């Protein structure tokens, strides 16, 4: 016999948010951008970027991942939640899988597609939790012992104040005036708090242990495009866009790298990675959910600007992040939203009037005017916004390694740059663009502001947000044997089952036991199937509807109005149950006990086993022989007694 348990849980697996700004990576997302180089098919036309609207779509909310309220679903075969499944190790009797079975292989290298020889699903968010129905085999006997689930009635979440976005700023220094000479070697991401006081030993991002950095996948070398203001509706966006400057080593379009100065002359587009496959975001999810070209072409009415999918499998060990290169200035939202130059007279970050002559010029990438140590180099600054998804989230860090020049003979020394991360509410800055040496100073300005434009990133609502988590499921557990549900109401109608308050899980501190325990147990006989159903009475999709109504312009909302956001990485519901499985001879004992009408549990099985062993024989007819012998012995004794009494008399015997 084995005492087994099953622990099911579900919760949000993605960062969920509504973007109040444009991001420059909104074009050419997803696999549509794959075959954009010569020899790989027709370049897909990107979504037309004019007439941009910030729609405020609720990004990251997977409607399929939240159960419909009051509709029972199986803990085993529904698409909800996880049972924490892991691939079997060397002790598995299953057919060995093909490929890399290590846990690390599920995410990461796109070329490694995990397959297993059997049809056993091994990912914990696959659409089913087990590989076959819960059928009790002929030589088994299952006793369902007890269960519990998350308590709580009202959906009231925990609401915690925090900030909405991080800002990451990084600079690249590229040799020459043609940025496509250079090449990115790797982009790494991690979440680690840098402590300038030195107590943690991580003074700067460079001190972060190498093991924490996770490489960001760049799907097919997405170009970072920068909108050209001269673009017209009918122009080819691929040509009209000013591109970024870097390409990854493994970008399929730069297989002929090293062609010489500069690549662009030979028709190779300069690239900067702008779309990342994050550690918890698999390629398949990008493929499934990324924005597609709308049918019917790029009519203005079909533009879905900020529609994209960062939906990932639930992974409790890693977060999913939404990182964007925001086109903050192009937002159609008025001040105070956007990037603003600031005066440096005050220690605070005071946005100034954009018409202020002191503001100078600024942008995300500018030449450095060939002076000083930067002579002959181009400096590029990129501002990224990153969604904050959890209160426990570490500070996001970005590390880029690149060759500042790359040619036929390969690249030079690898340069490493780290992003500067801003966090907290309020404006993010100050940020000094790389063109501070340009002739954009106002000679008439006071001396203290003549260091050039310094700007800051200002988010809506002062970058404040309330993260909502721990909604209560208001859930009920029911057990199904074959096609019959166990629980019913006093009027013999179907019941949803037992609530998490009656049978809570996990057990909270207290001197009492939960109100409900499954006594007597439920038996699942050989040949029967069973299921554990869970019903959620909290309408979580309604919360998505609310957010959509508040933040989506198509529903009358405004993304700037969004003040609450669901957090990532909490458990919405948990269900636990345990059962005994008896196999082989013990299953036969269970059958015997059942026949006798005795409750089946380990004690009674042991009890019956002891009874059998007390027979001092293992033959099935031993006991009957023993009975016959006993009766014969009794009769013989009676005969002897009779004979004895005949001679001695009964009184003598009694003495």
């Amino acid at each position, binding site marked *: 016999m084995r005492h087994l348990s099953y622990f099911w849980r579900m919760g949000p697996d993605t960062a969920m948010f509504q973007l109040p700004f444009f991001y420059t990576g909104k074009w050419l997302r997803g696999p549509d951008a794959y075959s954009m180089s010569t020899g790989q098919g027709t370049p897909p036309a990107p979504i037309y970027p004019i007439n941009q609207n910030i729609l405020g779509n609720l990004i990251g909310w997977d409607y399929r991942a939240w159960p419909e*309220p*009051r509709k029972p679903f199986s803990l085993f075969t529904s698409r909800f939640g996880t049972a924490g499944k892991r691939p079997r190790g060397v002790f598995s009797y299953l057919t060995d899988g093909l490929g890399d079975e290590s846990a690390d292989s599920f995410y990461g290298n796109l070329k490694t597609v995990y397959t297993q020889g059997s049809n056993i699903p091994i990912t914990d968010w696959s659409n089913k939790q087990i590989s076959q129905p819960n059928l009790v085999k002929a030589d088994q006997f299952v006793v369902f012992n007890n269960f519990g689930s998350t*308590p*709580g*009635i*009202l*959906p*009231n979440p925990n609401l915690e104040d925090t900030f909405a976005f991080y800002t990451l700023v990084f600079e690249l220094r590229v040799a020459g005036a043609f940025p496509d000479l250079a090449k990115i070697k790797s982009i790494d991401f991690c979440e680690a708090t840098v402590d300038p006081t030195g107590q943690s030993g991580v003074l700067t991002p460079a001190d972060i242990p190498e093991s924490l950095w996770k490489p960001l996948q760049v799907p097919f070398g997405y170009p970072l495009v920068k909108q050209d203001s001269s673009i017209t509706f009918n122009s080819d966006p691929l040509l009209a866009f000013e591109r970024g400057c870097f390409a990854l080593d493994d970008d399929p379009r730069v297989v002929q790298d090293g062609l010489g100065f500069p690549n662009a002359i030979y028709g190779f587009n300069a690239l900067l990675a702008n779309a990342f496959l994050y550690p918890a975001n698999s390629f398949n999810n990008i493929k499934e959910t990324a924005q597609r070209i709308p049918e019917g072409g790029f009519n203005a009415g079909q533009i879905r600007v900020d529609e994209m999918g960062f939906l990932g499998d639930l992974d409790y060990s890693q977060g999913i992040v939404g990182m964007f290169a925001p086109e903050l200035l192009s937002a159609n939202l008025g001040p105070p939203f956007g990037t603003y130059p600031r005066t440096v007279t005050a220690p605070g970050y005071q946005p100034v009037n954009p018409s202020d002559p002191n503001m100078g010029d600024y942008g995300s990438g500018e030449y450095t005017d060939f002076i000083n140590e930067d002579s002959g180099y181009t400096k590029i600054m990129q501002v990224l916004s990153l969604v904050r998804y959890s209160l426990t989230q570490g500070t996001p860090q970005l590390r880029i390694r690149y060759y500042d020049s790359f040619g036929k003979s390969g690249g030079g020394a690898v340069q490493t740059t780290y992003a500067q991360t801003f966090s907290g509410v309020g404006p993010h800055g100050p940020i000094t663009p790389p063109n501070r040496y340009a002739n954009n100073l106002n000679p008439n300005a006071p001396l203290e502001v003549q260091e050039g434009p310094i700007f800051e990133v200002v988010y809506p609502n002062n970058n404040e947000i*309330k993260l*909502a988590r721990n*909604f*209560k499921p*208001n859930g*009920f557990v029911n057990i199904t044997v074959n096609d019959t549900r*166990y629980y*019913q*109401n*006093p*009027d*013999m*109608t179907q*019941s949803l089952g*037992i609530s998490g*308050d*009656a049978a809570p899980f996990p057990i909270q501190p*207290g*001197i*009492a*036991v*939960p*109100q*409900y*325990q499954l*006594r*007597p147990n439920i038996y699942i006989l050989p040949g029967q199937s069973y299921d554990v159903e869970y019903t959620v*009475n*909290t*309408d*979580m999709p*309604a*919360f998505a*509807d*609310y957010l959509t*109504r*508040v933040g989506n312009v*198509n*529903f*009358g909302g*405004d993304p700037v*109005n*969004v*003040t*609450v956001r669901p957090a990532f990485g909490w458990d919405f519901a948990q269900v636990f149950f345990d059962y005994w499985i008896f196999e082989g001879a013990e299953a036969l004992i269970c059958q015997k006990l059942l026949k*006798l*009408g*005795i*409750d089946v549990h380990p004690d*009674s099985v042991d009890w019956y086993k002891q009874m059998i062993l007390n027979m001092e024989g293992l033959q099935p007819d031993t006991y009957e022989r023993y*009975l016959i012998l*006993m009766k014969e012995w009794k009769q013989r004794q009676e005969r002897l007694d009779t004979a004895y009494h005949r001679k001695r008399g009964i009184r003598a015997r009694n003495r």
Partner: protein
Amino acid sequence: MAVRRQAYEWRNVIPVDGNTYPSFVYAIPAQTAGYFKATYPDLPYVIGHPVLNCNPYATPLANPTYTSTAPSNDYVERRNDSIAVPLIAGGMPIGLFTGGHGNNIKTSAHVLDNQMVIIDSLSCWPPDANLNIFVDEHYYYDAPDFSAINGLSGYTVPFPEPNYANIFTVESFKKGIDPPIYIMPGSTWGVFISFSAFGNFINQAEGFIFYGTGKQTRAAQNVRLPGIPSAPLNLPLPYVRNRKPTWEGKAEGQSPDSPPNPWNSPSQLADIKSALQDKDIARAFVKYLLIDGADFLVAKKMMDIGLPITEEGIQRFKQDLTRWQVRADVHEGNIDEELIRETGMTTRRSALP
């Protein structure tokens, strides 16, 4: 043929629909600042456990297009606007099954001819609520002089357990009701809950109703009282919740004479519904065994010979039957003596079920 462990849970909470102006309500909505205060649907009960909405706005997405007006972004203060805890007058017994408050079932509980129900556990919330069982025309809990009594108090058997107030089931009820309550075939049964009723009266002249539980959901004007389907009455302070003695006040360390919670103060009732918590919801939990089939015959036999019928008792009895059977095969003479000694039954072994 089985002994099945069943349970029924009652909660005094219902969803509300801000678009509905019901024909008969306990509270009529007050429309302020562009949104509807939550009102009850036609009656303050639903069949089965209701879905509780995470969208705080009672008004549904009737027109989910760009022409519709977006709700306020004040999620924090409005998060329970689509949920209501119906008011129940103090001292008024409310049936858990068909009492017209909270989640109900459609028909009363009736035990079929081949069934037997054994109620072995009751519990309720808040602690100053009480439960009483009726079987056909009889109440189970009586006062010592056999007069009417509220029944089993939530201080004795709280639900859930553990709870925020750290009130636990008293020792003598930890194993449930002992002996349990048998509901025999053909009987109708049910459970009443009643709430504390300090000053248990409805004085329309003064406009006061003392409520044992529930949460105010409307402004203190325009009230229709139950059973008076006439024009709304203009009552200055129609709802005054029972304040003393009250479990909330004790749990939060306030004196019994002061308003225990802000939302119990009549002047503030209407606007702070967001403070509603699980502990504010009245609840009851009834646990029972549903016995039918062959086990029903065993249970009847146990009743015949005077054995208490519990889940463990049925198991032990069946186990004993087996043991007696085995031992009788060995030594026929002793079985009846042991059986008589343990059960008082004088039937011979062959007559056992």
